[in-house]
């Protein structure tokens, strides 16, 4: 137990199959992993919370109903301020994304739970979903006028061959930065937490002096836990804000 090699900060991100459909003989293999399990738990937690808390439909809301109304107001204000009233048609989309990321991040803070958003493929899939919606809606609504997004207003014609590739690369970098930011924050936070918590175990193998020394990493772990809760909420917020900003581009393509 006191073996320092036992502290493996990466182990918490391992994907394991819980059960799988198909297999070698069937020619396909669909595995239900621990990541899938926690996605299902996240969605179930959000749905049941929202359905149960609003089922009373009190004119004067109770505590839980107030909480879900506050979540609604928070996201609605965010969408309205960055994408305008027209953007409110995307409210269900942004709200679902926000709640999914928020609850997945917060569930990851529970000991022994798996953090869905600490895998880049998950966050990248979410970011691609956002960009696909932006592209599809942008072309549907504005037709080819959506391409004006890549041509800043008031730029003389002879610099356009330089500016347009830059604008296109800048647009293409959005899903990357969106997904890397969320993934890197969650991954780095959980690793740091685990490393500092591991110091406690390692130090405690040195007897009484070690126990005294372990107070330092212990206080650090407590502080980091608080920081991680902040980061969880903040990254969900940043993800949702940037989503509504990108949707704003699809609705009003000219800068």
């Amino acid at each position: 137990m006191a073996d320092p090699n036992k502290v493996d900060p990466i182990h918490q991100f391992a994907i394991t199959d819980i059960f799988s459909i198909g297999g070698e003989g069937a020619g396909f293999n669909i595995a239900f992993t621990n990541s899938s399990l926690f996605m299902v738990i996240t969605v179930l937690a959000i749905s049941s919370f929202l359905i149960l808390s609003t089922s009373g439909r009190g004119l004067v809301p109770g505590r839980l109903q107030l909480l879900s109304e506050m979540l609604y107001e928070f996201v609605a204000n965010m969408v309205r301020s960055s994408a305008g009233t027209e953007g409110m048609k995307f409210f269900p989309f942004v709200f679902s994304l926000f709640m999914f990321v928020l609850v997945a991040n917060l569930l990851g803070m529970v000991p022994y739970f798996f953090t869905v958003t600490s895998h880049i493929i998950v966050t990248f899939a979410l970011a691609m979903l956002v960009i696909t919606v932006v592209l599809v809606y942008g072309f549907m609504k504005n037709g080819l006028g959506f391409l004006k997004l890549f041509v800043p207003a008031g730029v003389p014609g002879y610099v356009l061959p330089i500016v347009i590739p830059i604008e296109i690369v800048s647009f293409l970098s959005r899903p990357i930065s969106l997904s890397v930011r969320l993934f890197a924050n969650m991954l780095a936070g959980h690793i740091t937490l685990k490393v500092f918590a591991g110091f406690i175990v390692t130090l405690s193998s040195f007897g009484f002096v070690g126990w005294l020394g372990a107070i330092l990493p212990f206080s650090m772990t407590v502080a980091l836990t608080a920081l991680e809760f902040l980061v969880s909420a903040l990254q969900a917020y940043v993800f949702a804000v940037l989503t509504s900003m990108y949707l704003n581009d699809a609705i009003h393509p000219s800068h």
Partner: protein
Amino acid sequence: MSNSTKSTSDKKASTSIGSRSEDTRALAEKINLAKKDAGIGNEKKSESHLTGHARAVRLGTEFIAAILVGFGIGYFADLIFGSSPWIMLVMVLVGFAAGVLNVVRSANEMNAAVVITPDMDLGPEDDDVGNG
């Protein structure tokens, strides 16, 4: 007026009242702080209490992501056209420019979201004569 480098309109009004100016100024300060805490008068306030760390990570990823995308486009274009490494070199530069553009844009957004409060010193103002 010249004794204040961070004057706001209500403070200007209060200094001209004279003897009660100290009380009024303290009250205005209190009201402004309370407004700031309650987030009154600014819909976009939420962006402004991003921590410094979150801002830094945001700017960093915006920059790196654009370079990576430029590199990726150039790399695969080179594979297709067999012109290694020329398109990649050009596209990395384009990606660098796009990264700078991303950083400038998000910094502008962050600046626009900042709430200006009386306790902020934004440098000398037009009406500061001989003091700044």
